[in-house]
């Protein structure tokens, strides 16, 4: 059973549907017990970092996710959910994250150079780092497969955990992993067949 963490941020309809379409048993819940009893945790998120991090804390779910992650349970953060796995974010100020992945969240404007639109929105190709084995959540993917992004901030100073990048004026962090904790900056639930293959691989961990 996968628990999709519901903490009042964003729209979980597509995520729930995409998990159903690959035959995964999933429950959307903000209940501590349900999340603790699940085999895997999926942390979604859209909107602003500060607001989302506060809501997660107010539900008391930040501790639950950290506890379960430290016990070895697979956790996958999506988009803002991925950004919250980091130690901190510099989106409108400085805000504390869950600290499950070393690094921080910074504006893409700092690295992509001029002439490119912000947010980075649309389909972009994934590249896997040459010096690492392809991560198991990408086991069904090929280099250059396209996924769908919508973001203005990115995971920075996290070289050790980067498992995929996408080129947009710079090699932006597209996905990270540190042990049993995974994050995708893009939306697998909006990335067609490629996205479903990633969710499938996560379910099979």
């Amino acid at each position: 059973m996968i628990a999709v963490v519901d903490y009042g941020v964003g729209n979980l309809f597509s995520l729930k549907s995409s998990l159903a379409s690959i035959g995964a048993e999933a429950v959307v819940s903000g209940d501590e017990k349900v999340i603790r009893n699940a085999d895997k945790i999926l942390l979604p998120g859209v909107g602003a970092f500060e607001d989302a991090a506060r809501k997660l804390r107010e539900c008391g779910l930040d501790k639950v996710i950290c506890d379960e992650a430290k016990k070895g349970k697979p956790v996958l953060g999506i988009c803002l959910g991925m950004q919250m796995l980091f130690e901190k974010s510099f989106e409108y100020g400085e805000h504390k994250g869950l600290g499950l992945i070393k690094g921080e969240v910074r504006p893409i404007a700092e690295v992509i150079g001029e002439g490119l639109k912000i947010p980075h929105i649309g389909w972009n190709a994934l590249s896997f780092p040459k010096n690492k084995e392809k991560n198991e959540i990408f086991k069904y993917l090929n280099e250059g497969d396209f996924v769908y992004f919508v973001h203005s901030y990115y995971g920075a100073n996290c070289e050790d955990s980067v498992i995929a990048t996408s080129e947009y004026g710079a090699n932006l962090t597209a996905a990270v992993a540190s042990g049993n904790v995974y994050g995708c900056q893009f939306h697998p639930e909006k990335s067609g067949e490629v996205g479903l293959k990633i969710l499938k691989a996560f379910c099979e961990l």
Partner: protein
Amino acid sequence: MVTKRIIPCLDVKDGRVVKGTNFMGLVDVSSPVKLAEYYSKNGADELVFYDITASSEGRKLFTEILCEVASKIFIPLTVGGGINTVEDFDRVLKCGADKVSVNSGAIRNPGLVEEAAKRYGDQCVVLSVDVKRVDGVFRVFAKGGRENTGMEALEWIKRCVGNGAGEIVVNSIDTDGVKKGFDLEMLDAVCNIVDVPVIASGGAGCMEDFVTLFNSVKGVDAGLAASIFHYSEVEIPALKKYLVENNINMRI
């Protein structure tokens, strides 16, 4: 680098796709769900659903169809038509829409874009604008292109982007239905004043029109069309292959 996008637009009335009646290879050619599945499997980068129903029963049916589409199709979905309030945003977002397109609703209530952008984020709010030249000036038209609002289109677009519109669909009334190509001059003018994605609509008649669009107006991010895709005059997989051969970055 992020790819250019090809977007089929489905006009839905009373639960059926309008203009979908000549679609090749499908038995039920006007089913929104079947058409959406077909496009999703055949290279569409995104889908736009336009609710052109006027009745509240029709609206309810549209919402149900949207839920069904969103539970089967996992590419971005934009929904427009009949969006007048933030509650309308809520209604379609809950059914799995990713972006909501406003047109007349924003003209009637200029606060709508800002209110929706604050609640759902800029990336969620698409401004769709019907533009026509009147005495050499780009003017905004309302009510499906029938009524001249008198507003200057570039100013209107700039103002809405300032209020949080995250994407602009430019429908040129002058080129719409003519099938002689997109309105390059109008699109260039829009791309020069905004830094959010611009989607070109109106005028596509053949594959070459898309090559010309992306090569001539570098700021354009996507090409949208309806009937040429529905009638298979242009097949999206062949179109995208042709664009790649012409050095335009596409998701294949």
